[in-house]
């Protein structure tokens, strides 16, 4: 790092690489540059393939001011030597910053915001830009007709977010259950929006709409088998579209797990599911001057599983999932469910995670490669250091080809670092990860 490599040192490094004697390498280098020097002296440009071009530039005489005396002086015409590295060499040198690429800036980001963008925030900013375009309230409704009969679900409700929070600009447009569950959903939704508005408060620099997902799925565990799934997306403050995607996957998995679980134990109706799951996370950036300050906002996904008996036969499990972004605060909220129907309603505790790193290691975390989301981005997000990407790669190596040519849309498993015994704070482990990365690239050379 930042060493000055002298000729003998360069010669010894070269000899290691080529297997030739150190002296020969030294002579070669000296000879090479002597030739270049001679050619330049003759006024010729020199191009070494794969290395670069040495050019002579004639600088026209120009006027200047002597800084010490303040007198006008003329800088005489002279010849400057310029070196332009070849593409190969430039790419090699730029390797540490390879993951950055040129991004178009959408028009809705003001110049002030751009002025604050720091190097580390670059990727995130770019994804935030995408978040906007991909944000439209998606409302799915997949309600079984049985449910309609039994409970008269499916009524459309438009709840303006502004009524709840001044910071939120978009309205809520989703399907919620209309009957007796309505009130409960209302409460849950209201809370989500409140918390979302807190997020807005905390990240004034970037006001991106957040898509908070509220999913309510109902399942009849009894033999009648009524399954209803109501998905509603609340447009709120979306920092990352991508983040919610893996969250969605995880959520699906968990849902499936629970459904299977539930059907297995159909008799046992009054079980409580209390499972907090941080599937997705919201990353918010607070940019102060040139200093980098990244605030990670985790979208805590809450699964409040409530089982209750509506009539003598119908048992409905309401699985209300809310995605809530909140800065550095654990909000334990209980979905306040009424006991209207004199049924046994048990509310599962909702837990909001604030830190990705606190994710339990036994939970499988999925993530998706996109045009702007790479293994490095994920590593930075999940582990806090992009150098640790080889571990994500290794975990999925059977399905991934060349690490630079992973198709967008590829789903990967993000392993817990404890599996590999890696501590992201340990520089030795980082160095090991770097070596592993080089080894991975070496496989494809």
């Amino acid at each position, binding site marked *: *790092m*930042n*060493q*000055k*490599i*002298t*000729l003998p040192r*360069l010669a010894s*490094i*070269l000899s290691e*690489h080529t297997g030739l004697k150190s002296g020969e390498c030294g002579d*070669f*280098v*000296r000879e*090479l*540059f*002597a030739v*270049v*020097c001679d050619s*330049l*002296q*003759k*006024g010729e440009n020199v191009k070494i393939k*794969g*290395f*670069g071009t*040495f050019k*002579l530039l*004639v600088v026209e005489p120009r006027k200047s001011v002597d800084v010490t005396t303040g007198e006008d002086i003329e800088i005489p015409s*002279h*010849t400057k*030597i*310029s*070196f332009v*590295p*070849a593409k*190969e*060499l*430039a790419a*090699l*040198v*730029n*390797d*540490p*910053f390879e993951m*950055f*690429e*040129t*991004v*178009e*800036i959408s028009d809705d980001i003001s110049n002030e915001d*751009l002025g604050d*963008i720091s*190097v580390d925030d*670059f990727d995130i*900013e*770019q994804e935030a830009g995408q978040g906007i375009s991909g944000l439209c309230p998606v409302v799915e409704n997949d309600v079984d007709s049985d449910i309609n009969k039994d409970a008269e679900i499916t009524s459309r409700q438009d709840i303006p977010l502004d009524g709840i929070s001044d910071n939120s600009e978009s309205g809520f447009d989703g399907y919620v259950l209309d009957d007796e569950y309505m009130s409960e959903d209302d409460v849950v939704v209201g809370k989500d929006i409140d918390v979302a508005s807190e997020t807005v408060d905390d990240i004034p620099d970037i006001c991106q709409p957040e898509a908070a997902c509220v999913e309510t799925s109902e399942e009849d565990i009894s033999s009648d088998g009524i399954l209803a799934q109501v998905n509603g997306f609340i447009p709120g403050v979306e920092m990352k579209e991508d983040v919610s995607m893996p969250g969605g996957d995880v959520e699906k998995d968990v849902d499936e797990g629970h459904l299977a679980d539930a059907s297995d134990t159909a008799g046992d109706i009054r079980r409580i599911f209390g499972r907090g799951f941080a599937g997705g996370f919201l990353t918010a950036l607070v940019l102060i001057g040139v200093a980098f300050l990244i605030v990670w906002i985790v979208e805590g996904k809450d699964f409040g599983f409530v089982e209750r008996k509506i009539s003598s036969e119908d048992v409905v499990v309401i699985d209300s999932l809310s995605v809530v972004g909140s800065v550095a605060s654990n909000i334990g909220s209980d979905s306040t469910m009424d006991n209207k129907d004199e049924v046994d309603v048990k509310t599962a505790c909702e837990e909001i995670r604030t830190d990705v790193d606190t994710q339990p290691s036994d939970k499988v975390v999925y993530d998706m490669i996109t045009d702007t989301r790479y293994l490095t981005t994920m590593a930075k997000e999940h582990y806090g250091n992009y150098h640790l990407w080889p571990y994500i790669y290794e975990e999925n190596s059977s399905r991934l080809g060349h690490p630079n040519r992973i198709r967008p849309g590829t789903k990967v498993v993000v392993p817990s670092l404890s599996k590999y015994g890696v501590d992201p704070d340990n520089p030795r482990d980082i160095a090991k990860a770097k070596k592993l990365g080089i080894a991975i690239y070496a496989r494809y050379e």
Partner: protein
Amino acid sequence: MTECMGHLAREMDVVSVPGFGSFEPRKRLERISFQPSTGKRLLIPPKIVLGFRPSAVLKQKVKEGSASTSKGIEE
């Protein structure tokens, strides 16, 4: 040779060749530029470029060389 230089430069090491000059990697900050054709703003990422600083000896040689060639042209 190229590969070696690249690896060294990546570590931000300066390679100096006596009598010729030194190759030093320089960090370039990210910047915002405009694409003239579409007028779109582009965020150019930060990067490391390999710079070259000719030594005084080489400068002198080139100066002499250019002086002699220009003299030759005049004559």
